[in-house]
């Protein structure tokens, strides 16, 4: 993938732009190191310095992109979160709300029903509460936990997608700039169009519905995912096409700087979409915590001296 050569392209741009700008000003480039320098013409040294200054920032502009987040770092974590999803895939539902991928039900979770059958006949307060407050809502709570983790996983997908596309976009900017420098001396007006694919990285998922547990409103979860993965994303809007022009070396490089600035902005926008959805999710979970986790059963804190008493197990019938 050409992205691996990004810094090489950056230096090429700097080199080409410098040569062209020097030619434009009538100055000659400095001789390569180790060779005797040309006898300086009047003003040539100042011109060289001025031109060098004009394009001195180019490698730095690309350096940050060369070191930007690696999509692979997200891929590995996504697989690990997937393990958690597989664990909590219950018999009731096993479909990821974002990707619509199916997860085989984890039948170990069914053993909660077996536990229920063994505790059913016990009359102690804690035993009965365990049935009504823990076992009874269990399927709904597992469902909601699964949804929460799916949203967490989809957010990583979305973040990864941003950086996959950013690589393509910065690579295109580099190539288009080189092409523009190669073209600027030809007869036509030097224009080109760039589409920023990063703009459509993150797709929203219509409210992820939760299983109701307690009475009252059940708020759904806001999810975002990688647009390439979101099942119901629909056809995305065309990413914006931006025109650039440059018939001199400084003009071409200015266009490049504009493109990079735009790319920065689009990346920030897409990341903010993820941030907003996650923040909203945290709030939704906090507001309906009972839907995501049952309180610690009283039975869990029974002691040897009180466990058989009426407050805990009581008697069986």
């Amino acid at each position: 993938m050409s992205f691996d050569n990004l810094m090489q392209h950056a230096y090429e741009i700097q080199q080409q732009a410098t040569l062209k700008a020097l030619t434009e000003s009538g100055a000659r480039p400095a001789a390569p190191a180790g060779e005797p320098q040309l006898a300086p013409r009047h003003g040539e040294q100042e011109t060289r310095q001025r031109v060098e200054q004009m394009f001195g920032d180019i490698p730095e502009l690309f350096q940050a992109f060369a070191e930007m987040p690696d999509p692979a770092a997200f891929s590995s974590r996504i697989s690990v979160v997937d393990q958690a999803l597989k664990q909590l895939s219950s018999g009731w539902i096993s479909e990821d709300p974002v990707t619509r991928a199916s997860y085989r039900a984890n039948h170990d979770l069914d053993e909660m029903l077996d536990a229920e059958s063994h505790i059913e006949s016990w009359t102690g307060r804690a035993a009965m509460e365990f049935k009504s407050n823990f076992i009874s809502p269990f399927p709904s709570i597992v469902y909601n936990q699964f949804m929460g983790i799916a949203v967490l996983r989809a957010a990583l997908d979305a973040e990864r997608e941003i950086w996959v596309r950013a690589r393509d976009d910065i690579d295109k900017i580099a190539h288009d700039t080189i092409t523009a420098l190669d073209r600027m001396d030809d007869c036509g007006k030097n224009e080109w169009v760039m589409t920023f694919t990063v703009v459509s990285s993150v797709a929203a998922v219509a409210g992820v519905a939760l299983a109701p547990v307690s009475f009252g409103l059940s708020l759904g979860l806001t999810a975002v995912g990688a647009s390439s993965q979101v099942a119901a994303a629909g056809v995305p809007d065309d990413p914006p096409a931006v025109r650039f022009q440059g018939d001199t070396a400084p003009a071409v490089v200015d266009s490049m700087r504009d493109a990079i600035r735009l790319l920065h902005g689009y990346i920030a926008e897409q990341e903010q979409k993820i941030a907003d959805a996650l923040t909203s999710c945290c709030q939704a979970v906090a507001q309906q915590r009972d839907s995501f986790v049952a309180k610690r059963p009283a039975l869990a804190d029974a002691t040897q001296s009180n466990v058989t008493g009426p407050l805990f197990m009581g008697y069986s019938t």
Partner: protein
Amino acid sequence: MTGERIVGLLADRLDNMHVTAVAPGGAISGELRGRDCVRVTFAAGRYQWLDERYVEQQLAGLGRLLWAGRMRAYWAAVSEALDTPVSGEEPPVGPRDVDYQAARGGIVAEGRSDDGSVQIEVRGMRDWTVRIVPGSLRRFREDEFSVRVQQAATALIRDQFAQVRSLKDTIYGTAG
């Protein structure tokens, strides 16, 4: 920064361009290689029967055809480099573009062979005029005459590009 220059894709395509054409009468063929290297050849046995006036018209026609071929190859190369189909120039936007396009149409480029026996002139890369010093076809062998055409054509192409560059610097240069 030293070392070998990495060549961009477009530069590579332009450096390796190859365009061929046959003059309207069929007696003369031409090819353009790279940016400015032109070679003409005559159909077998024809050279000795041609006169300067005829060759001037034929070379003018050949010039037009080669340049049209060159521009097609150019747009194909640009499309490849930008990874999107581009087949021509966008309409002018703003006064500088308008000025540039008008002035470009009026550029008269000229090239002549080292000894002056062949001269080629083109206005706006559209109106081609070739002048051959009378007697040149009899004075020079076919290969010697071809060399002179090559010299004139190369000089013309370089003059055209130099004038374009200068015009762009004038019109687009001050604002950077």
